[in-house]
């Protein structure tokens, strides 16, 4: 296995691969470091290993931080035939769909939608939870937990059920009903906290020191974050081992945004990408006006983000104090991208635009991402010849309120006359 150790992103201090997330020397965040010196340089072989792997994120086991279950682990058990789905829910391998009608509407030529709503609990969070929970089991934890804005709650509760682990899920008490229902159904211990996500996060960070639990996005965070790289791996593999020219990605904490780029970089450095014209795609981050600390810092030319109190319909992006904000800013600037924000009305319009042109119904976060793509296109930031990937992270059925009242239903008596009189007259049938 290529996974080597944990390292502080700030001062580069090294730590063992345990349930650690903060550097004791400088308080910086820890991340997983790999040693690919023993990874095959035979590109054909490496690609065949990936393509011959399971139809889930574990086809990329060589690039993920789970030691015991990986292929080729010295003394480790082999991955079972039929894939590694016994490690949890089979996340990943979601469709990458060419969206010509969306592109045409925006005056662009090549737009692809990476539809991560097609995951077991209908958001990209299954990727990160799958990795975190696998590592948690390797480290001997029997209870998993999280602080969540909703999608993570669904995924942790479902993974707990699938693996027979106890789970505790902490959410803001005012979360969308659909997300609460789609969490509680799995039999988790669901705790609604009076406050916003940042309050939930603070409470869980304190609890993390008191309980011997694997908080997937706190003490298991270095492993958890790695799961997002699989989005980049899949996009590159699905494009025929090529990079897109541009990615539009939602930003909450900034982790997904930066880890997608990390995935592209890792594969480019290993030579898995065919003749890359640039080291990374242009990375465009998307936020909601009502919670846009990263977009504001980008616009103001700042290197750090000033925390905000979120007030937006895009609750899954409502993190007012984004820990990876400084890294997200750096990435957007270094790749010639940007971080933009859109209003709640633009978010609703974004959901509708994606639905009407692709048949994909996304949640409010996807509305943010689509609306930012539309804004970039309108602003002339995108060369019409660019290959653009829009990363859609969640399912519209989880945030139904956002589309309520956005269309009309005609109710009629079950007669031809009623149809002719009320529908046919207003619509050319």
């Amino acid at each position, binding site marked *: 296995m290529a996974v080597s150790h944990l390292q502080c992103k*700030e001062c580069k201090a090294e730590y063992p691969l345990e349930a650690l*997330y*903060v*550097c*004791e*020397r*400088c*308080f*910086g*965040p820890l991340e997983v470091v790999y040693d690919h010196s023993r990874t095959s340089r035979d590109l054909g072989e490496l690609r065949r290993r990936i393509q011959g792997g399971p139809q889930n994120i574990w086809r990329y086991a060589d690039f993920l931080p789970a030691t015991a279950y990986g292929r080729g682990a010295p003394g480790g058990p082999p991955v079972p035939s039929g894939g590694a789905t016994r490690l949890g829910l089979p996340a990943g391998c979601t469709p990458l769909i060419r969206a010509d009608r969306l592109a045409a509407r925006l005056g662009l030529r090549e737009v692809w939608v990476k539809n991560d709503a097609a995951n077991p609990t209908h958001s990209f*969070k299954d990727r990160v939870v799958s990795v975190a929970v696998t590592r948690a089991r390797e480290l001997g934890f029997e209870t998993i937990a*999280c*602080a*969540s*804005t909703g*999608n*993570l709650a669904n995924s942790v509760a479902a993974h707990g059920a699938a693996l027979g682990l106890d789970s505790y899920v902490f959410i803001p008490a005012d979360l969308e009903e659909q997300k609460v229902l789609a969490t509680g159904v799995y039999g988790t211990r669901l705790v609604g906290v009076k406050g916003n*996500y*940042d*309050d939930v*996060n*603070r409470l869980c*960070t*304190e609890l993390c*020191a008191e309980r011997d639990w694997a908080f*997937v*996005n*706190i003490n298991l*965070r270095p492993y*958890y974050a790695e799961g997002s790289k699989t989005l980049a791996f899949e996009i590159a593999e699905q494009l025929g081992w090529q990079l897109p020219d541009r990615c539009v990605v939602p930003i*909450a*904490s*900034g*982790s997904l945004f930066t880890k997608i780029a990390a995935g592209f970089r890792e594969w480019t450095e290993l030579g898995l990408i065919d003749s890359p014209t640039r080291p990374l795609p242009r990375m465009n981050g998307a936020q909601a006006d009502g919670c846009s600390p990263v977009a504001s810092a980008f616009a103001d030319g700042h290197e*750090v983000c*000033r*925390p905000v*109190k979120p007030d937006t319909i895009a609750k*899954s*992006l409502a*993190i007012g*104090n*984004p*820990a*990876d904000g*400084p890294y997200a800013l750096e990435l957007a600037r270094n790749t010639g991208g940007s971080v933009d924000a859109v209003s709640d009305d633009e978010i609703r319009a974004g959901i509708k635009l994606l639905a009407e042109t692709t048949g994909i119904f996304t949640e409010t976060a996807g509305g943010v991402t689509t609306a930012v793509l539309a804004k970039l296109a309108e602003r002339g930031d995108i060369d019409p010849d660019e290959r653009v990937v829009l990363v859609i992270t969640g399912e519209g059925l989880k945030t139904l309120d956002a589309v309520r009242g956005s269309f009309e239903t005609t109710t009629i008596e079950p007669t031809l006359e009623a149809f002719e009189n009320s529908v046919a007259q207003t619509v050319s049938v």
Partner: protein
Amino acid sequence: MSVVVKIPTQLRAVAGGEAEAQIDGATVREVLDGLFERHQELRVRIADDDGSLRRFVNVYVAGEDIRFLDGLATPVADGAELTILPAVAGG
């Protein structure tokens, strides 16, 4: 005025193993200075050379992030709780 400072696990090794400390001070800055005097190693761990807090350090007074208050100048009431935590994200 005496304040209860809650020390995160990652810093307890350089705080004599203490999880909490009683420190006198009228503002967050005074309390932190008092804490740093008692445990000098703490200063370099969480503060920059100019005295400001490192960017991954969150400080809360009675549960509120001091960046929504007056930062290091935020006044602290007698018996208040000041919590130091690492910034982590998720969602």
